[in-house]
């Protein structure tokens, strides 16, 4: 069922999405600008907080300066994180109207 969504909507980093965004996690992929153990660390932490492939995600709030950090709802919990780290979370939008 996720396949239909994935094929119709392109994947984007969560760090670029705006408040109200609703979608599903496609992949956790830490960019090339972070190296080795630091990249693994960020990936592990995201996984431990519940950011796994397939999870539904929604951006609830944005911080007061530069719309950063963001607060996202993921399977019933709310997590605050910076857009910088959210770039590692690749998502597919599930609704066209945010």
């Amino acid at each position, binding site marked *: 069922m996720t396949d239909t969504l994935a094929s119709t909507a392109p994947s984007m980093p969560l760090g670029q999405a705006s408040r109200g965004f609703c979608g599903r996690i496609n992949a956790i992929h830490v960019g090339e600008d*972070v190296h080795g153990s*630091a990249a*693994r*660390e*960020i*990936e*592990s*932490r*995201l*996984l*431990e*907080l*519940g950011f*796994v*492939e397939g999870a539904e995600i929604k951006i*609830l*709030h*944005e*911080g*007061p*300066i*530069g*719309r*950063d*950090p963001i*607060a996202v709802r993921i*399977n*019933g*919990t*709310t*997590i*605050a*994180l*910076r857009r*910088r*780290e959210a770039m590692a979370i690749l998502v597919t939008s599930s609704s066209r109207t945010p």
Partner: protein
Amino acid sequence: MSTQSEIGVPHFALVGTPNSGKTALFNALTGSRQKVANYPGVTVERKAGVLQTPSGRRVHLIDLPGTYSLRGRSPDEEITRDVVLGRLVSETAPDLLLCVADATNLRVALRLVIELKQVGRRLMLVLNMIDIARRRGIDINLDRLSAELGVPVVTSTAVRRGGTEELLRRMDEMAAGRLEPPGENTWKPPTTGELRAAQREADRVIAAAVGMPARPDTVSGRVDAVLLHPVAGLVMLLGVLFVMFQAVFAWARPVMDVVSSGFDWLGATVHDTLPDGLLQSFIQNGVISGVGNVIVFLPQILILFFFILMLEDLGYMGRAAFLMDRIMGGAGLHGRAFIPLLSSFACAIPGIMATRVIDNRRDRLTTILVAPLMTCSARIPVYTLIISAFVPATHLWGWVSLQGLVMFGLYGAGITSALAVSFVAKHFFLYENHTPPFMLELPAYKLPSVRSVAIGLYTRAKMFLQRAGTTIFSMMVLIWFLASFPRPPEGADGPAINYSLAAMIGDALQPVLAPVGFNWQISVALIPGMAAREVAVAALGTVYAIEGGKEAAEQIGQALASKWSLATALAMLAWYIFAPQCASTLAMIRRETGSWRWMAITFSYMLALAYVAAFLVYNVAVALGAG
């Protein structure tokens, strides 16, 4: 209480993710029978207590720092890992792990349970806050959950009376049963692939055993729409801080007046009962006025801690970190530093200890460096004394106390300078191009438990009074001695204190401190003030009481108002914004950073700032005619 009777007492440990209500559960189970200390060699807080099960069995319970996994990314989490694995030499390996989970947020907790199963110890899952989960329509099939996980499951509501009965009954059963570990420890740090697999397994168990409600929690969402709003949220945060400081200054007043007149009465009684002489002077001026001048601030400290504990239990602290992350980031601080810095308003020592939640060393060092600049409660006595002596007790616009406003300004000055110092430190000395991540769970809002807050306040009050009873008392005795000896020669005129050791020390320091407007009485008071800031007030009290001789029934505030110029008073306030006058804070910095260097740096930069600030304020004030 002999060690003999402790043999055979089973050791249980509470493990769980942050915000699972673990500490509230620990408070509910052990009540005031808990001991808070440090693990040897590290400054991670160790909370342990003994509880009695319904059948009268004694159980030793330890509350381990919250963690999402056993990977151990910070000193706190390393302690949890080492205790769970039985690696910590000083700690008896736990016979049973009680994994505490927020019943409304099982995904993350169940992944931790799956990881904990690998350590081969006996394990029980405690679904805490079950009342909230049920009210929200979350339907958990306990038998199914237990079968799927292969772990016994029990429910609890830490904040409700009787909410731990079922848990205690099960603990009783477990304590009566076999306690030896059922398996081998096969735990090793999980790879990202294993983390994914464990989360998938947790999600499978949830799908099998938990019925999710049609509509999720909306209350927190609606509250957050205001409290996390880019504008309204910041206004509310400022409002919360403003009310907090008004309360500390205004609400505590009546109680403080009662305490202070109580000590005055005690002093007068001693004066009337004992014959004139050294003993009378020692008890009245040294002991009663010294210790009384410090204990009088207990109400303010309790009000401040009350606010901090309430905000913590409500779940607001994480929101504050969210709002402040970029603002603090601009100053080179991590959003997580907000909580340690806010705690530093109470005392820099717990604040510096709380920096353990920051896992990046540079971020942590910066936070430790500026934590003592936050206006701690030990400065309140100094500020209050000077403000009430020099600032008129009028109200602006009918309701804002001018004294409270000055107090707010002093706090503002502390915050501003902390941000400025961290900006300089981060950008010029501790530069690094990789910024560590900020990821924080924002828990659902909860009504704080009266009992849990009360236990927290009780612990703080006990610590403060112990300090007043030991450190401050011995300092007062020393000051009284310095101010009373040697006795003046026969036929000498002027107050006896002018011939004392205190006057000699004060005179020696005078040339250095004269440019900032301090007289020799202040110079004397600053020395014992090194032990703790609030001691300076008591020391001033003792110095002026002895100087005033037998007629010194007058209040210390009035004495200052008549003997200091406004410029001196303002310089003293400026000095205290920065002054590194707290031996315990310095010792804590030494311990937390593991180096004398950072302690020396903190001491020198604060002393330099204090001197410069007091110098500027004094000379500007004199130039404006306040000398």
